[in-house]
């Protein structure tokens, strides 16, 4: 994101010949993954556990069968005891999801499908315990992967994690056997893992790490969430870092580029030391902006809000000076589980954010999932999820689910300033239906004597072009609007950004997109309805001037981007930008955001 930082990739490319101080026999190993938490880290690798692929396969003597079966049964019991102890000693602040997952893992351990078949393989084919277990584990994993239901498919990874845990017990190592050494070390340490399971996460709590790198995982993996909350860089999806890096190897983790360098030459270390210093300096300089007002050179006040996914991210938003939460995604409550969160569970999560934010507003978006996610456990095949029954369409088709969430949000509104945000509204019939349900839920709460904010503001996401094009009645119906640029761009251009064949055509600066944004902001001003942008565009400091030029006064973004954008805001002259942008917009000309510098 920070354009002032020199691209390390370019540095690597320029260094095809080894330096004098590097043995020629040591090639530079650089792995490419996905950076999910920014920053740079340097330190020693701590490699977590062995993978199922690395265990020994051999046949045992017929006389050894009984002993081998016993060895396996003992390992099963020890693993089960270990998980039970973990579950019993869960810290009070551990996410509830972890307890549920540990419970599933315990049931998997106790499952005869896993144990009996493994014992049979030992007995009949004379496989050693590890071989028998991985064979059966793989077979079960494949059966799960072949299932139609997405939730059930994912249980395959639970089976894999359980198998690995037993393998560690068999090998006499624990998944995090070297944890004590880790906790005592003074050197910066980098966790290298195939994947980090919920049970590992509990044990890693409290340990200090400079960074995380894993073979598997995406931006919403446990690894990513923990790394971001710790403020350390993480690179996931590296594919094979676990098999390349060894304990004690010197690693450079580049969370910006999503790369990991293994045993780099001193010259590379120097390059990264200076990059890390620059990064730290720029973060530090930005921190000095915390206490200055967020306004342009010509005195226009700009709202800077945070997008968060978890209650645990509220402190980060506050630490970066967020004026409030512009987007609390409620999906986190519904993901990675088969059942639905209860009203009380939802209420507690929302209330936690509201209380943490004090008198700052918290905008809670109602469920933005689709039928492709199989929330109700019924396997459905959606031809085109982006155009299917998702977000408000999904909620209106399931009034009970929607009402439960609304009750939880309304109850949380008794504890601070809550705003309700409805995703993917397209037509006025949906507006009426939604507002009616909200009123009905309010009456219900009133009748029950439950407290809520009677003046709770209700807003809509502007993400379907239809709404942006015919915005007036929507601007009249809602208290505020929030432009979700990611979907607005995808629908306007007909581009699926996840499709690598067309992703290069995904253009936030297309004049049609900019006109829709400008038209929405304009309508908001005419009707006296605040308009925010909460899509990725809002957090891209390169586009801050352009959005100011479109008349935007309210931004919402990932907390880590707030100060970068604030810096741009304070350097911009809002009126001059508006004049420049308006002209180009009228002529539907391409706008180069880098040339908007006054």
């Amino acid at each position, binding site marked *: 994101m920070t354009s002032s930082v020199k691209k390390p990739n370019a540095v690597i490319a320029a260094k095809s010949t080894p330096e004098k101080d590097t043995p020629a026999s040591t090639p530079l190993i650089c792995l490419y993954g996905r950076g999910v938490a920014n920053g740079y880290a340097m330190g020693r690798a701590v490699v977590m556990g062995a993978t199922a692929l690395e265990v020994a396969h051999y046949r045992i003597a017929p006389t050894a069968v009984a002993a081998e079966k016993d060895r396996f049964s003992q390992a099963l019991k020890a693993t089960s005891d270990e998980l039970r102890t973990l579950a019993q000693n869960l810290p009070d602040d551990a996410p509830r999801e972890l307890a549920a997952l540990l419970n*599933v893992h315990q*049931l*998997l351990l106790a*499952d005869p499908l896993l144990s009996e078949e493994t014992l049979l393989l030992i007995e009949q084919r004379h496989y050693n315990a590890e071989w028998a277990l991985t064979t059966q584990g793989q077979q*079960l994993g494949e059966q799960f992967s072949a299932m139609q*239901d997405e*939730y*059930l498919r994912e249980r395959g990874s639970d089976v894999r994690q359980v198998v690995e845990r037993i393998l560690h017990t068999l090998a006499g190592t624990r998944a995090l056997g070297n944890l004590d050494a880790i906790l005592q070390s003074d050197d910066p340490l980098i966790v290298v893992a195939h994947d980090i399971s919920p049970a590992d996460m509990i044990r890693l709590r409290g340990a200090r790490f400079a960074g995380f790198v894993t073979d598997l995982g995406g931006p919403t993996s446990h690894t990513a969430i923990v790394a971001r909350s710790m403020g350390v860089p993480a690179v996931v999806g590296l594919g094979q870092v676990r098999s390349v890096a060894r304990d004690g190897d010197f690693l450079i983790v580049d969370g910006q580029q999503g790369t990991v360098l293994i045993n780099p030459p001193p010259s590379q270390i120097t390059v990264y030391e200076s990059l890390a210093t620059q990064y730290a300096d720029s973060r530090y300089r930005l921190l000095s902006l915390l206490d200055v007002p967020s306004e342009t050179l010509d005195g226009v006040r700009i709202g800077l809000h945070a997008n968060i996914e978890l209650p645990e991210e509220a402190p980060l938003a506050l630490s970066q000076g967020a004026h409030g939460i512009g987007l609390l995604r409620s999906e986190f409550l519904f993901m990675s589980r*088969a059942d639905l969160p209860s009203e009380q569970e939802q209420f507690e999560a929302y209330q936690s954010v509201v209380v943490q934010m004090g008198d700052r507003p918290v905008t809670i978006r109602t469920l933005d999932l689709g039928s492709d996610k199989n929330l*109700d456990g019924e396997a459905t095949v959606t031809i085109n999820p982006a155009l299917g029954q998702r977000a408000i369409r999904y909620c209106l088709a399931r009034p009970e689910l929607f009402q439960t969430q609304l009750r939880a949000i309304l109850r949380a509104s008794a504890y601070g300033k809550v705003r309700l945000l409805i995703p993917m509204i397209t037509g006025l019939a949906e507006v009426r239906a939604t507002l009616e349900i909200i009123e009905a839920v309010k009456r219900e709460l009133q009748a029950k004597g439950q407290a809520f904010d009677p003046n709770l503001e209700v807003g809509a996401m502007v993400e379907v072009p239809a709404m942006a094009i015919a915005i007036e009645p929507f601007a009249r119906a809602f208290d505020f609007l929030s432009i979700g640029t990611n979907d607005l761009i995808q629908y306007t251009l007909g581009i699926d950004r996840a499709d690598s064949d067309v992703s290069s055509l995904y253009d936030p600066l297309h004049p049609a997109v900019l006109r829709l944004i400008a038209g929405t902001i304009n309508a908001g001003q005419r009707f006296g309805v605040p308009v925010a942008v909460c899509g990725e565009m809002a957090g891209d400091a390169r586009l801050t001037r352009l959005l100011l030029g479109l008349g935007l006064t309210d931004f919402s973004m990932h907390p880590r981007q707030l100060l970068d954008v604030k810096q741009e805001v304070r350097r911009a002259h809002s009126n001059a930008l508006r004049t420049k942008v308006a002209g180009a917009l009228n002529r539907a000309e391409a706008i180069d955001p880098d040339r908007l510098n006054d």
Partner: protein
Amino acid sequence: MPQIDLLVSNKLGLHARAAGKLTKTAGQFTSDIFITKEARRVNAKSIMGVMMLAAGKGTTVTIEAEGDDAQEALQEIKALFDDKFGEEA
């Protein structure tokens, strides 16, 4: 062998948590307990077996039990289904 047909009426079907509850309940009895959906018959004490049935809401499953406590087991399991696995609390 004593058996009963039960309708899966909880919203989420026999996935994960409900499967876990069924497995745990079945595991408390010494009887052999099986659950059948269409042609597939699995050990009701196996969470993976039960999950692999992918028995969603509206499906009918057959529970069979054989052993000293077979009748009690069937009663307990029926109660679990009737209670929708405690989901709609």
